[in-house]
């Protein structure tokens, strides 16, 4: 049983969506009311900073710190953009949240916008989340009617206008500057940074981009306070709860709200129901397709940003994909790299040309046609691509390749020596 306090999944009932009336019944919009009546924008930024909340979109940057860089005093318009592209394989938590309880995001958006003194917001929603888009359309209409969106919200003098943008596919739109180009109706290649979006973002104006889960946490932090939020984590350096989306070779592949810092082994056994088909755990992606593998030696590790960085991986989006001991990690890595190669936006050479070359090499070795020179070339490519791409997509693609070469090099060599896949 899950004994973690449920914040984000508080109202979640399988197969149902909670709308305005029921959202208010469980305390919905109380945080917003409290903040607008009793807190200044800087107070909110300070609470969020003190709460230790780190961005849930993958990079894990301190949300409060990011907000404190925002030029809240600059003239309007200023934008708050919510990123619900969620297209990294293994990641489906934001979709689950919006399928269950869309008002949480709306309340979080208004609160965050108030803290940043932003007057216009956009929620960017991936094509496949059609139901979630429709949930949000209804939630926005309800919130407007109730006076939680629009002009002079709750008589506070604060105005906030919120738009929804349904996208049309492509992983790269999750990269924040590509997303901004997408919202502007331009070809969504990423932009050069700096200038960062806080300086020149959407339509050239100051903009903050945050993940769905990040923003949905804000009302809970305002309600419960920074200390309380921080203490929800299991590890001392962590903060809050986290949505863990389980997938791959587990008996139970569902999404759970659990404390940050829960050990990997506990997650797999107590929530994933153990590895399927009575097989053994071999490896996992701890936080989406771009995060280097963990293996059985990491089962005790606290799932959080810093502990995972220490072992050469990343917490990412906490979408945990498990592989059993019958899995060929070379074949899995090939699948992952094929994803990145196909989703490359084609702007820069290391990614556009480098990733297909990596796929070609992996495929050749997987089929048993590889040589030691191919393995050398694979390593060379990894070095050539790392740190040389225009945006972080190609860097992310190097995650699984790094994991393969660091943790499963012998498996690659076996393919070469046996002349076939050993699995």
């Amino acid at each position, binding site marked *: 049983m899950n004994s973690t306090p449920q914040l984000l999944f508080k109202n979640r009932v399988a197969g149902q969506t909670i709308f305005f009336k029921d959202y208010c019944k469980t305390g919905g919009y109380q945080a917003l009311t409290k903040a607008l009546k009793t807190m200044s924008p800087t107070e909110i930024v300070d609470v969020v900073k003190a709460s230790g909340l780190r961005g849930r979109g993958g990079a894990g940057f301190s949300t409060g710190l990011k907000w404190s860089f925002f030029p809240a005093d600059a003239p309007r318009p200023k934008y708050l953009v919510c990123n619900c592209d969620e297209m990294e394989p293994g990641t489906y938590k934001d979709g689950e949240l919006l399928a269950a309880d869309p008002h949480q995001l709306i309340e979080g958006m208004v609160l965050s916008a108030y803290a940043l003194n932003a007057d216009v917001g956009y929620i960017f929603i991936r094509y496949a989340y059609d139901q979630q888009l429709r949930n949000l359309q209804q939630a926005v209409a309800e919130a407007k009617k109730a006076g939680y969106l629009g002009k002079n919200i709750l008589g506070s003098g604060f105005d906030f206008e919120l738009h929804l943008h349904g*996208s049309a596919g492509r992983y790269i739109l999750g990269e924040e500057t590509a997303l901004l180009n997408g919202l502007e*109706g331009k*070809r969504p290649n990423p932009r050069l940074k700096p200038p960062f979006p806080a300086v020149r973002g959407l339509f050239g104006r100051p903009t903050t981009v945050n993940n769905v889960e990040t923003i949905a946490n804000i009302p809970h932090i305002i309600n419960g306070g920074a200390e309380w939020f921080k203490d929800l984590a299991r590890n001392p350096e962590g903060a809050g709860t986290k949505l863990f989306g389980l*997938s791959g070779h587990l008996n139970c*592949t569902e999404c759970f709200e659990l404390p940050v810092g829960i050990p990997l082994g506990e997650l797999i056994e107590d929530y994933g129901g153990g590895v399927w088909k009575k097989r053994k755990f071999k490896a996992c992606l701890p936080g989406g397709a771009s995060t280097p593998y963990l293996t059985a030696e990491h089962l005790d590790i606290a799932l959080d940003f810093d502990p995972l960085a220490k072992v050469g991986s990343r917490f990412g989006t906490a979408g945990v994909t498990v592989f059993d001991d019958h899995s060929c990690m070379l074949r899995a890595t090939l*699948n992952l790299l094929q994803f990145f190669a196909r989703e490359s936006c084609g702007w820069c050479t290391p990614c556009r040309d480098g990733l297909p070359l990596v796929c070609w090499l992996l495929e050749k070795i997987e089929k048993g046609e590889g040589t030691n020179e191919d393995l050398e070339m694979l390593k060379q490519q990894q070095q050539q691509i790392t740190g040389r791409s225009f945006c972080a997509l190609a860097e992310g693609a190097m995650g699984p390749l790094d994991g393969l070469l660091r943790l499963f090099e012998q498996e690659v060599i076996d393919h070469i020596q046996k002349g076939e896949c050993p699995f």
Partner: protein
Amino acid sequence: MICLGNFSAEIEIMKKLLLKKQIDAFRRKVAKTEHPRELVIDLLREIQDRNGWVSDEGVELAAQILGVTPIEVEEVATFYDKIYRQPVGRYPIHICDSICCWSRGGEEIANHLQQQLEIKLGETTTDGLFTLLPTCCLGGCGRAPSMMIGRRFYGNLSLAELDRIIEQLREEAKG
């Protein structure tokens, strides 16, 4: 692209792509926003919903409504994989081939569909009903293997389930 010489015929073709009230609604939005281009995806999605895909005329219509050049629409339309710049079947099937679905039999699903429909990935059945397209993760990783037909998501697929779905759509198309 169609012949630019015959301008009025061209406008007639374009008008068939969206209802007048849809075009008018977009024109009103264009008049209200400072940056009309931001409407391009909405507009392309609407043209596609009504016509099944976005033709050259669809691109030109979007350009005309937004007051931009066709190439400015085209460079966006060709970027997104869920905007179809070629005709697709009545039921475009997007089969997820990313890691979670792959790890739970996604390849089998793709092979089975290709056999049952007697087409390869990227092709459309001769009766015009189905197009098979590989896609990356659909955000249904917990319900792998999965696919999307049109805008509808299907998860926890088995081969038997797949046959049932296809049969059902064939029946629906007859009715």
